[in-house]
């Protein structure tokens, strides 16, 4: 996904728009109904989006959105 790059620039005014705008990312980060997958965490400038406004959290120019899969499984 994201052409194999670890860091990309993306456009959007919300977290939902940002993750939806990067090739191959939306289907991995969000489930069929557009919810964040259970084992995926999203941060905006270091704050977890569940502490903010979830996928509706506003994003400005220069903000950093981090997609971090939980180290889960067996």
């Amino acid at each position: 996904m994201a052409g194999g790059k670890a860091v990309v620039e993306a456009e959007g005014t919300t977290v939902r728009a940002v993750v939806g705008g990067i090739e191959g990312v939306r289907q991995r980060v969000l489930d069929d109904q557009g919810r964040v997958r259970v084992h995926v965490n999203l941060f905006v400038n270091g704050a977890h989006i569940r502490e903010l406004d979830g996928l509706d959290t506003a994003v400005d120019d220069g903000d950093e959105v981090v997609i971090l899969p939980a180290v889960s499984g067996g």
Partner: protein
Amino acid sequence: MTTVVALGTAKGVFLLTSDKARNKFEVSPPHLPGEALYSVAIDTRGGRNRFFAGGGSWHWGPQIRYSDDLGATWSEPVERSVAFAEGTDGGPSVAQIWQIQPSTEAEPEVVYAGVEPSALFRSEDGGLTYSLVEGLWNHPHRPQWTPGGGGMCLHTVLVDPRDPNRLDVAMSTGGHYRSDDRGSTWNARNKGIKAVFLPEGQQDVEFGQCVHRIARDASDADTFFLQHHWGIYRSDDSGDTWVNIGGGEVADSGVPSDFGFPVVTHPTQGGTAYVIPLNSDMFRATAEAKCRVYRTSDSGKSWEALSTGLPQDNAHLTILRDAFCHDGQSPAGLYFGTRTGQVFGSNNDGESWSLLAENLPPVLSVRAAAID
């Protein structure tokens, strides 16, 4: 001619390859390493040799991918090929791909996918994109289907070789359902299958059985063999009625236990089916600490143990529902994998077996075929 055995494991896909004699197999490095592939399929219709793998990572969710070059490269869909539409009633999301089943030669572009939560999808473009079979999703029984130990899985999809509009599916739990109109309407067909996990007096239910696997007979398309959560059954009328052919009420059936997961029919010999008995639902390991395949050649009147070449001492192996198959050849090649990473194979209808691979991740799904 190459015989390929595709393994879906908890950590990737492995391909075992051999010549027609099928005496010795080479094991590939892992494809899609690290991903749990609950379903694999080999589609040789329409001039293709397409390998499917269904499943994925714990983090990024499941999907179906395919390879047309023996695993060298795999598709990487930008959008998920199997997914519920946003806004679907109940808010479902595909949680696992339990089965990938190419349809018949008559419709080489049609492929089915059985998923969790108990839904059927159909592709009409060779397995690239899939649409929900809404007739089953909207079935009035759905609220009463409940998940088994593996989740609410639709794990068996059978397409009638005489008429691809006739479909059979099985789910745990829910039972066996048949559609005669390409999936528009479905009827539960479980008469005779006892739901032994329900209280006495309530075990003869219309639906809700925990069917583990169904296989169609080679010579009579109306005959099925079924491994239940306790009980081995046969139907001679396309699943309308079922009779117990192993264990339970059947004295001296020959099987040490009628609990197990897979059932496989012989590719060419009618009345011939194979099961692998496990001790019980509470102890899901090969019965009596011996790894044995049991075969009936008379439609279930009798069973014989096939153990030559299989471990017979302290063998506590588990074989999952989709981890046993044949390769369509004659004599039949038969292959099964274990949760402890062994793969056993027979090139002579099950008369003798050999260890084809070991020390692999848990084996979840096995498919085999002869390809050019």
